[in-house]
């Protein structure tokens, strides 16, 4: 119960992934040349000398979309348990519940739409 | 006794209705007249009270369910102890209206609203037969009093009113706890029923302390008196009058109504302490009053001394003492109220309360000075005035109890005479300042100064009827007390002075045979 084959497999496969990814990297680290100096460490901006760093705040719209995702994704999360059980339920009540759930979800979409969240602004502030 | 209407309830409700009616009035002058009319109507409504039967029962009793879930009842009634207080309250109201006729010039409506509200609450306090109802009125009365001081008071009104409010409310919060404790232990909030219950000494001990603190602050007794001079000095005349005449009585009334009957053994146990504090109040109040240069402050401190007599009388536990205390309550209400009205009257002329600014009135305001003289004499208990009756009774009781106590009272009485003479002489014959141009009393002032004067002399010369009123109740009170504490009394010898102090700090064991 506490530790099943599934856990074992997941850990093993993750380890495998790590090896698979780390192996070539380490190999590369061993065999690849190591040149230094010049502008080699300069961030690539098509040959221009970079002005300032990249770690600044930028377009807030991306955050808005991230928030949207969080909201919807989690709603969808609730449907997974339903998916396994829905077929085997009896009566129309489950359907009604689905309608309610999806209606709320749809309302959220409508709300964001009406509030102009989906409109990509011309000038990102 | 059926008068076709519930007398006490109407006495409580009518001022409120009248107060609400004030808001329909625009002109200040009409508001004054309206309130005066209302106060007289209130007096008329109170006429049925004159059919008071001379016995110890609660009379004019009204009962109704209030919050049945908690056993709260709307129960009203008066006995000999509260009867006079109710009458006093009713009588003071028109005087207050009259004495602030020109004194109050701003926010007149609100002022009279407070007065009426105040009256309602005061009547309620004295008439309540349910402990919680009592508390409700007891606290409700704070609000108008606070506003009276804070809005219409003198320069330091905010400080004074705050001090007044904090002191009294802080005291009464513990009273609430005591009330609840009584309910839980005694099973009822009804005061007459609670009087039948015998509480354990330990319970009485704590309940007495909680209640006594609340009442002692209200009285005020010596260490808790500091709010009183401030409040008196800053309050407008009418406020001072009500404060002195009615509010201070609530404390002593509380002692009589609650401490003695409900916690008799604890009362006896703490009596030495209370007596000591009372005497301290008398001496301290008198001594401080002697040094005052402010007339109002002087009278305020004299109040402390006078109330000391009252509490002393109460805690002597004999008939004369309690009678004296009751008389003193009544007298102090009349006399000090009148004195404050006079100070208000003279303040309107001099705009100063300092003795130095109000000298030489004997020549220019003879009528005023005449009244002042009467009241000053009454204040220190000159024979023939009502003050004498009360003070004398207390003296008698004190000497009955112990010569030491009596001996300690003598300087107190002398002090009273001294400060009253001092201020009166100065005011009458001192070098006049601006007094030359002042008018003497007008007809309104005559009216409101004459009425107390009548009572001063009436009680002083013919106290019999008042004895008739109070005696049955007082006898019952003292008798009950004696009966219930006799066992304890014998078991517990008179505590030594050291025990008095000890009693205040440590919880006693149960008395041996209780």
């Amino acid at each position, binding site marked *: 119960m506490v530790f099943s084959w599934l856990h074992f497999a997941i850990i093993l496969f993750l380890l495998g992934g790590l090896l698979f990814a780390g192996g070539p990297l380490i190999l590369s680290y061993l065999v690849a040349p190591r040149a230094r100096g010049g502008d080699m460490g300069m961030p690539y901006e098509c040959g221009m000398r970079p002005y300032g760093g990249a770690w600044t705040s930028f377009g807030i719209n991306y955050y808005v979309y991230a928030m949207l995702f969080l909201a919807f994704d989690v709603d969808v999360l609730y449907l997974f348990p339903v998916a396994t059980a829905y077929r085997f339920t009896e009566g129309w009540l489950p359907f009604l519940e689905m309608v309610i759930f999806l209606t709320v979800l749809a309302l959220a979409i409508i709300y964001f739409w009406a509030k102009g969240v989906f409109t990509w602004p011309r000038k990102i502030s | 006794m059926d008068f076709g209407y519930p007398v006490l309830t109407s006495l409580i409700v009518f001022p409120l209705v009248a107060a609400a009616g004030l808001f329909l009035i625009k002109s200040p002058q009409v508001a004054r007249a309206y309130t005066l009319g209302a106060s007289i109507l209130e007096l008329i409504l109170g006429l049925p009270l004159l059919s008071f039967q001379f016995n110890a029962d609660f009379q004019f009793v009204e009962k109704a369910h209030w919050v049945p879930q908690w056993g709260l009842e709307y129960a009203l009634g008066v006995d000999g102890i509260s009867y006079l207080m109710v009458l006093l309250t009713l009588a003071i109201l028109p005087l207050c209206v009259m004495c602030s006729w020109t004194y109050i010039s701003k926010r007149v409506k609100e002022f009279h609203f407070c007065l009426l509200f105040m009256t309602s609450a005061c009547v309620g306090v004295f008439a309540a037969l349910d402990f919680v109802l009592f508390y409700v009125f007891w606290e409700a009365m704070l609000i108008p009093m*606070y506003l009276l001081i804070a809005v219409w008071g003198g320069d330091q009104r905010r400080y004074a009113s705050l001090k007044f409010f904090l002191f009294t409310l802080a005291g009464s919060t513990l009273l609430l706890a005591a009330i609840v*404790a009584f309910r839980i232990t005694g099973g009822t909030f009804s005061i007459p029923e609670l009087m039948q219950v015998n509480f354990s000494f330990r319970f009485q001990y704590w309940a007495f302390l909680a209640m006594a603190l609340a009442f002692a602050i209200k009285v005020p007794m010596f260490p808790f008196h500091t709010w009183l001079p401030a409040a008196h000095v800053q309050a407008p005349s009418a406020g001072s009058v009500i404060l002195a005449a009615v509010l201070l009585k609530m404390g002593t009334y509380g002692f009589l109504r609650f401490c003695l009957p409900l916690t008799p053994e604890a009362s006896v146990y703490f009596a030495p302490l209370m007596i000591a504090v009372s005497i301290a109040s008398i001496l301290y109040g008198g001594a401080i009053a002697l040094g005052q240069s402010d007339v109002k402050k002087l009278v305020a401190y004299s109040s402390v001394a006078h109330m000391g007599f009252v509490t002393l009388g109460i805690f002597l536990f004999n008939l004369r003492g309690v009678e004296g205390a009751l008389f003193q309550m009544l007298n102090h209400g009349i006399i000090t109220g009148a004195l404050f009205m006079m100070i208000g009257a003279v303040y309107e002329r001099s705009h100063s309360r300092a003795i130095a600014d109000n000298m030489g009135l004997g020549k220019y305001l003879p009528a005023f000075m005449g009244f002042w003289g009467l009241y000053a004499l009454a204040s220190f208990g000159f024979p023939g005035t009502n003050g004498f009756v009360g003070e004398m009774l207390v003296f008698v009781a004190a000497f009955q109890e112990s010569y030491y106590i009596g001996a300690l009272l003598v300087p107190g009485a002398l002090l009273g005479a001294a400060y009253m003479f001092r201020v009166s002489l100065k005011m009458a014959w001192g070098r006049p300042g601006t007094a030359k141009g002042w008018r003497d009393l007008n007809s309104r002032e005559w009216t409101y100064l004459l009425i107390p004067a009548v009572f001063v002399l009436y009680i002083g010369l013919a106290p019999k009827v008042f004895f008739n009123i109070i005696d049955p109740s007082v006898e019952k009170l003292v008798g009950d007390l004696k009966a219930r504490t006799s066992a304890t009394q014998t078991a517990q010898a008179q505590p030594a002075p050291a025990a008095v102090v000890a009693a205040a700090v440590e919880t006693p064991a149960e008395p041996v045979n209780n």
Partner: protein
Amino acid sequence: MEFNPILIVPELYQLLLIVALFCQSLGDGSDTPPAERWLPFFAGFGVFVSIVSWGAEGLIFGGAYKLDALSQFFKVAIAAGFYVAVLNAARQPSLEERKRPDYFMFLGISAWGLMILSSAVELITIYIALEISSYSLYAVIPLRNSGGVGHKGAAEAGIKYILFGAVATAIALYGFSYILASQHTSYIDQLAQRSWHWSGQPMAVVGLSLFLGGMFYKLALFPFHFWCPDVYQGSSNETAGFVATLPKLGAVVVLIRLAALLKPGLEITTLLAVLGALSMTYGNLCALAQRDLKRLLGFSSVAHAGYMMVGLVSGTAMGLSATAFYALAYVAMNLLCFWVVSRVASDGRNLTLDDLNGLYKRAPGLAFALGVGAFALVGLPPTMGFMGKFFLITSAWDHGYNWLVITLVLNSAIAIYYYLSLVRHAYTHDAGDDAPVPDNSPFSVCGAGILAAVVLVFGLVPGGLFDFAIRAGKQLLP
């Protein structure tokens, strides 16, 4: 039990309002009547609806949702509170016109969540209902855009509220897991049959304590109070009025249900008592130093949360009823105070005590109402505050926590000072030059008058109302 929609009419009605507001929030608001115009009528009807469904009884949704006297009592209270809050917020100066439907929608959702909360008898359901009501509040607070600490303060208040709220939630959930691990159920009626002694079930005790923490957060009880003054100060007056009142009802109803599990003498009960004592003392002491009116009211509500504990620890039906009644009284008093605050600060600023100066001249009606509110909060008769406090004391006396009662009594003495300073400033000081212009319209004065009348009338004759509370209490602890 068969599901019958009639049982949950108040919730459905509230949902209807939310949907209507939602639809309106989608449009640009040009053709429909603005939300603040029509909503009050319908919210008022909602009070009527919840009163009509008073007698509903039943156990639905798989035993997780219980309709009983307690829930219906609180539903009426919530509906009424919502009505007042909506009226109060109708003329909010610090809210953009186009955001109003959204604003009211969130308020509606919050009230809806609280209605659900009052009926929830299963811990997960309680938690979800609580979050429904909280999240919409979190969203509402930063909507303020001007006045006082302004838009910055509002955003800060919002983030503080939500972050600390989430921490409290996490702690509560962690506690829930302990309850689940030790008592194996999350239904309150089954939990009631289990033991809650430290000696037998330490894990359950820890769990319940932590779970209560989540409710304490809503209630702003002492160790979970720190958001309270900041949020009140940061959010607009009207929003603060809502935040200060209705969520407390929700928290109290859950606490009442959970306190029915406990008996005096249990460790948790003692913990409640200690927290209550600390809360009232701390709240009152902090409030003494405040100048900002809403901060002052914030600390005052910390203190009041402590008061409410007094009834809960008594372990009697009367105690629970007293708490219910006090919660109602608290809401009425605070709505009254916030109503006045909102009306006085007609430009949406944050009031300091000095802004109240001379209020009696500028707005006598409001000043009077403020006085009533302040005295009610002190606990002076004849107000609801006094009756509530009196019931609390009476119910708790002699049930093992007399020291708590004494603390309460002493605290009400401390509290006088700062409540009184409201009255002091309103009545005895004269107005300065930059004093705000209060709203003296009939609407504002009548509203204040009616609320004040409620506080006074139920203070004088609490019997009828208390009957309902007692039915609720008796149901939990017969």
